[in-house]
């Protein structure tokens, strides 16, 4: 896969396959192409050359309901509270189940009754809620871009454990992060990227 933004080659020939029910951690310097890779897999950007085959389907659009994406930015509405945000996004996946939203919020360690608007959340709370949004519809593949950025240590550990638990349920997870150490306890494989290419892959044995 190759991806250009004008003259800048964000991805300079990435060929890889990933197995299900694993937690992959993608690391590398800024500009290595980690976020771009995630966005291509999520279907937000088309590769300039090459293709992605996901979950056995022809196009990514077909399996959109089986993918969860947590972006660099919060991807939440500041003017709505937690439940209102999740209710809306659940609706986009055809889900109208209140209990599901409440469970997702509890799962990431937040209080479903909280009526505070997301705009007034702390960064840790916002990242947790964003994670809840990404896993709300029980996707098989979860893509997370810098989920721990500006998050306090306690929240970060909680989130890492949540991801480990989700992987144990049979889901495939791909996390882009600068904080590799955080993911050590739960990661299956570390994927190192540099200058738009994958330079190494190190499997780990999970406890």
């Amino acid at each position: 896969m190759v991806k250009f933004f004008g003259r800048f080659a964000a991805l300079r020939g990435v060929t890889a396959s990933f197995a299900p029910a694993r937690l992959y951690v993608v690391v590398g310097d800024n500009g290595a192409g980690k976020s771009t890779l995630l966005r291509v897999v999520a279907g937000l950007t088309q590769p300039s050359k090459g293709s992605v085959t996901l979950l056995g389907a022809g196009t990514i659009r077909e399996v959109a309901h089986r993918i969860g994406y947590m972006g660099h930015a919060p991807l939440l509405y500041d003017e709505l509270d937690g439940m209102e945000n999740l209710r809306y996004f659940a609706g986009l996946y055809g889900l109208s189940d209140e209990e599901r939203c409440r469970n997702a919020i509890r799962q990431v360690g937040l209080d479903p009754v909280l009526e505070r608007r997301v705009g007034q959340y702390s960064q840790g709370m916002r990242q947790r809620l964003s994670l809840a949004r990404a896993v709300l519809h029980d996707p098989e593949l979860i893509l997370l871009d810098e989920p721990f950025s500006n998050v306090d240590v306690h929240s970060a550990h909680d989130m890492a454990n949540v991801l480990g638990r989700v992987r144990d349920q049979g889901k495939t997870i791909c996390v882009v992060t600068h904080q590799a150490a955080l993911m050590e306890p739960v990661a299956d494989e570390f994927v190192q990227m540099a200058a738009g290419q994958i330079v190494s892959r190190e499997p780990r044995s999970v406890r």
Partner: protein
Amino acid sequence: MSAMSVTRATLVKDLRMEWRSKDAINSMLFFALLVVVIFSFAFNPTAEESRLIAGGLIWVAFLFAAVVALNQTWARELRNQVLDAYRVSPAPPNALFLAKALGNFLFVVVLESLMAPLFVVFYQLRSVGPVWQLIVVALLGTWALVVNGTFFAALSIRTRNREIMLPLILFPISIPALIGMVDATTMILSGEGTPDFWLKMLLVYDVVFTLVCLLLFETVLNAE
């Protein structure tokens, strides 16, 4: 999940957020009022003359108000990059477009409902023709502006100078609709001539461009 339910959910969400922040609504209502007052100072005709030019004045005023509303169509979706969350989901892009267009439509109609009585008062307007026809022209004309405006707002957010780009690409294409709105309104107000052709033309315009918007929106949404 159906496209309709997504459209409804999105529209409700937008209305709720609009209601909560209220600053957008309030400033636009005030802006609409200002426009009417300034026009009244700039064009101060007799009651008889005003019936002839009111059509043009009113629609230019509505146009200004509409552009201000249209420019913030996608603002909330761009903050926090929430639009990515929608694009990643299986929800159909056209449902999003319709929700935004309908939201804009409601909003501009509210602005027009405020401005129209003010025009009547300041210009001592009385309609010779039936008022229901005026309302039909207003609805068809507003949709014509709003449907293209919502689409072009999505185009202009991908440019370097988005606020000026929207009216710049919207106005030329809206010219036939504007001619129709203005002439029909003038005809109805002054009671001379029948606006039938314009009503039909506005309807054709609305149908054609709604279709074009729906056909092209997904392509534009995913252009990256």
